[in-house]
């Protein structure tokens, strides 16, 4: 991947994607030989409806600087309604995180279909740029450090 500044901070990004649309879309990105940021670690889920908010909390607790969540477009869900349920959950969750003072820009939500290989590359690249600008998740890392100290004690 192209980076202008080799010393710049590289965010650790976790992508929670659904098996039927975005995972296949990301596959298409690869087979189409479109390059995109290597920061992202893709985790495949059966459906966006399966992505529990606690998994996102755990990703942050394990040092993620940013999270991408992606699944089928509305009305395209393999299980008919998983993404509709997920959407409701995110609407509540995102506002709750904002309320406790977490930067919701660290979580990017998108719909990427199996045909949108190019969109996936775009989503990842733009998200990684966004996370790079936000810098390391220092507020959360402080909590992680404190929790480790107490557990050893």
């Amino acid at each position, binding site marked *: 991947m192209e980076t202008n500044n080799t010393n710049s901070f590289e965010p650790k990004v976790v992508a929670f994607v659904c098996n039927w649309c975005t995972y296949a879309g990301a596959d298409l990105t690869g087979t189409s030989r479109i390059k995109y940021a290597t920061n992202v670690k893709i985790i495949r889920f059966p459906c966006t409806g399966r992505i529990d908010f606690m998994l996102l*909390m755990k990703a942050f607790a394990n040092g993620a600087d940013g999270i991408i969540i992606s699944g089928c477009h509305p009305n395209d869900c393999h299980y008919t*309604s998983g993404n*509709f349920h997920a*959407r*409701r959950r995110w609407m509540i969750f*995102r506002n709750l995180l904002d*309320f406790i003072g977490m930067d919701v820009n660290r979580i990017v939500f998108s719909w990427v279909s199996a045909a949108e290989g190019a969109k996936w590359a775009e989503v990842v690249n733009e998200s990684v740029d966004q996370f790079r600008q936000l810098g390391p998740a220092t507020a959360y890392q402080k909590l992680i450090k404190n*929790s480790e100290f107490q557990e050893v004690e």
Partner: protein
Amino acid sequence: MNNLQQKAQQLLESGNYGLIVGYEKGTSGKARPVFIRKAEHASKLIFDESCDQNIAVYLYRQEIKHDKKKVIVANHHTLKSIVELAAENQVFDGDFMVLAFAENGDIIELNTFKEIEKHVATLYHGLTEAEAAMMKKIEDMSLEDRWAFWENEFSKCIKCYACRASCPMCYCPTCTVEINQPQWISVPSHTLGNLEWHVMRAMHLAGRCVTCGQCGKACPLELPIQLLTYKVALDSKQFFDSVAGTSICADNALAIYKPEDHENFIR
């Protein structure tokens, strides 16, 4: 003997009712829940503005499962919780009678869920002015200040789970915090685990919280954790027009969906 005590005595003497759950005078000017099974103890019952605890939490407890038909003396928080518990099939129509109070202090007997629902429709749903002011105070802070505020509050939490125990809607026999394969919430009470616990508790109450504030009242460290569940309750109303504790047949806001749900953050 006042009206309530006389009523309670009659009900227990009639033999049709086996238990009255209500309030008695507690220490330092507070009321506490009381369970009355004998008519001669009916004089313990009180009902005044000190009775602000949500006692719907006792309705489905194992300890009173085998008592004969129950009566519950309900304030407006308790009434809303009963409606929400009915919507979630946790209490059953005809299992108990509710004694509610009209504005002028008259006792209202509510025997069926339909009657309770109708009475609850006449009550005010939403935050009090003081609660709304607290919400506004936090929402007006900058992101960094909000984080600092909650980090400080969460750092004090001792994970006693009094918030969970006091909440009528927290009835799962096995809570996610007790699951250790995988360990969702870390056991020691450090700020990170406390934050995760409170986020999880609020999320699990989304669309179900009746904004009684009992979690905050129960907190021994007086953390304003009720604001988290108020936040999800207000959002459920704003986004999905769902207000918990108003309908005995409503579906949970996060268990249903509408294709036209509108958000502005998914690209």
